[in-house]
């Protein structure tokens, strides 16, 4: 859940919640039907949405090896599930918490940044074609987070380790 909301429940022994804190909670609760509705649609449309993304991606990046495209699509599916969960729980940091520590490293290691950026763009287009601006507003913060994880960043040195194993090293 949204960490600020979650923190509301931490210390009942200290004091009762303030009116503005209860308001924040009510606001979240009243947004829930819309969130659940959107989550249901993301769930039921996952395969059709991502299949269209996959078809376009494969056309646009015909030169890329299929196993790299598959790898990126799997991570795209995963990212979309995290985005859906982040939206449902109103937790903008969720995508970051679950993906930040490993996704940039894997993108770097397999050199799939160009594919992943295109993929992200295609997923975004699919979503905005299917959902209202209000619904997109609920998804956007996490989509942006996911997008930012693809940007080049300071990370470890696993780059050379995909094709060769450490066994050959010694």
């Amino acid at each position, binding site marked *: 859940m949204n960490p600020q909301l979650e923190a509301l429940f931490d210390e009942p022994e200290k004091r009762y919640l303030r009116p503005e804190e209860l308001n924040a909670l009510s606001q979240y609760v009243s947004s829930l039907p819309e969130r659940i509705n959107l989550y249901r649609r993301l769930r039921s449309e996952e395969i059709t949405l991502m299949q269209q993304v996959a*078809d376009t991606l494969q056309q646009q990046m015909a030169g890329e090896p299929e196993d790299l495209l598959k790898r990126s699509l799997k991570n795209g*599916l995963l990212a979309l599930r995290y985005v859906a969960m982040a939206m449902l729980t109103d937790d903008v940091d969720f995508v970051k918490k679950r993906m930040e520590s490993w996704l940039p490293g894997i993108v770097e290691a397999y050199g799939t940044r160009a594919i992943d950026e295109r993929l992200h763009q295609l997923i975004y287009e699919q979503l905005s074609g299917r959902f209202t601006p209000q619904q997109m507003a609920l998804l956007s913060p996490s989509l942006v987070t996911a997008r930012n994880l693809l940007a080049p960043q300071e990370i470890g040195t696993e780059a050379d380790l995909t094709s060769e194993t450490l*066994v050959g090293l010694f």
Partner: protein
Amino acid sequence: MISIADLLIDDRLPGNYFANDVYVRGTLELGLLENRRGDRLLALPDALLKSIISGLNNETGQATALVLRNCGLWWGKNFYARFCEELSDYHGKPVADLSMAEFLQALQECWRTHGWGVLSLNLDYQPQGFLVIEIQNSPFTAHAVQPNQPSGALESGILQSFFSQLTGRELTCVQTSCESLGADCNRFVLGLENRLQSVPSLVQEGQPHEAIMRVVTR
């Protein structure tokens, strides 16, 4: 064409198995802290680590580092087996089918989530046949074992047996820099024993990591 339904065939998209908000859980009413598979975890107080070292120092003197290293070797052997088991269960395939990048990233995440610090691999000396593991914020080196000497004997042991099993070679691991001596991180050099023979005495003399690496790669 790529079929999305096929990609989802086992209905699982492996992410970070060791994500800390999922990995650490427990049956707290029974006093059990557990990982996500239900294996028991322990919170290890810093004071206990300190007392183990001072207890060993009192009882065995100079042998403390050797004892700790031995413990690390045993720990590493079990750790490697359990780590591989957890990882292959999660990914639904043998560890050998994971790429090295995925495997090592899981190791880093595992390290971090257990509170053992931030582990990273330095491949600068890979062409010469050495692997350098750098660990920041290690809880295991916080207390000196012997004055002015690196204190990561336990970690040297675990890394040595972990990477020996991973690579199928008998590797040696020597610590060449230590946070407890003011270094920015702990560095552990892994390589074949005959190529690292000169390192322990260089470390004892207090030579810096880079200088030691210059000697062994000469």
